[in-house]
């Protein structure tokens, strides 16, 4: 009769388990969504001084563009046409100190800008003067985070380019625009 206690214990165990077992119910919510596009761009400096010597091409490779994007993207560069500039887009023009000179003296050659590839971000060659509508500078094939893009500015100065009286200088304002593609 040693089996009796085990039988009793077993049945009581079942009873206790049933008494303690929680009653459960289920329901679900499906969640679907899309991450919107994100892009950001910044420059490592707001102005660059470019010493110009007649008969030579001045270059400066200090311009760094930092970009982030969560999908493929493009970067374009445009003549910002700020400070009263109404002509000679893409050319360094006579800036009198507070605005562009209405006489619109400009260097004979357009400003050059050359990007450098970095990973999946490929530079685009700019030919001719940078327009106000923008030229492609980079095509980003994939998402990037704080990617630094190096660039070289170049300006050919002819012997026929005029020397400006002080305080006038040759200047151009550029805009760099990033967007998802």
């Amino acid at each position, binding site marked *: *009769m040693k*089996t*009796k206690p085990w*039988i*009793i214990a077993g*049945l*009581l165990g*079942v*009873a206790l388990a*049933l*008494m*303690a*077992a*929680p*009653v*459960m*119910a*289920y*329901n*679900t*919510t*499906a*969640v*679907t*969504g*899309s*991450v*919107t*596009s*994100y892009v*950001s761009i910044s420059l490592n400096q707001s102005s660059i001084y470019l010493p110009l010597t007649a008969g030579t091409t001045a270059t400066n490779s200090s311009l760094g563009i930092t970009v*982030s994007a*969560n*999908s*493929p993207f493009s970067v374009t560069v445009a003549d910002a046409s700020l400070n009263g500039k109404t002509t000679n887009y893409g050319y360094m023009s006579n800036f009198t100190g507070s605005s562009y000179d209405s006489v619109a003296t400009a260097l004979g050659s357009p400003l050059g800008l050359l990007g450098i590839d970095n990973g999946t971000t490929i530079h685009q060659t700019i030919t001719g003067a940078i327009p106000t509508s923008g030229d492609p500078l980079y095509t980003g094939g994939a*998402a990037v*985070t704080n990617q630094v893009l190096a660039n070289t500015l170049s300006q050919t100065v002819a012997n026929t380019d005029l020397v400006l009286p002080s305080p006038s200088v040759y200047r151009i304002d550029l805009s760099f625009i990033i967007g*998802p593609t």
Partner: protein
Amino acid sequence: MTPNFQKFQVMLLIVFTATVVLVFALPAGAATIDVSVNGNIQNWALTPGSTNENSTASPLTVTTTGANTWSVLVYDNLDNGKNSTSAGKMLEYNLTTSQYVDTGHSLGANLTVDGGSGDSVVGYPATLGPAMVQIEGGTGDVNNEVISVTISQQVATTDLHLTNGNVYRGVITFVGEVLS
């Protein structure tokens, strides 16, 4: 005692114990809980660099009978073949095939579910994952108790914007549990 009498004793004991089991166990079986949610969240525009909140699933409605205490829990049941590494997170989903992209992208942060509180209900915030986490709790029966629920998704600027037509998806399973 004869062997037959001993068998009779055992049988009698079993019948008695079984009766005790039924008497005590049946009331527990009579307890019920019903949990319903308002609906699915679709076409949620998730903005990078912020915590996106959505109350479309709200309200959560709970009805219980025979409850001593009850609770609502949430977890990611990995429905529709969702891979385990993405538990709690929204995973890339192909709307055309109605399947998850097994090697697809997932968002960096887990979904969170925040249960609202009321007069007789206490809500808790929960991070969605493979294990059940409580978002609501109450004592005693409730009848069509309406509870607000907020689902949140933190999106980093590094979370990818999908350009292949796929979306991010996850399924939140709400579990009602009642103890009588």
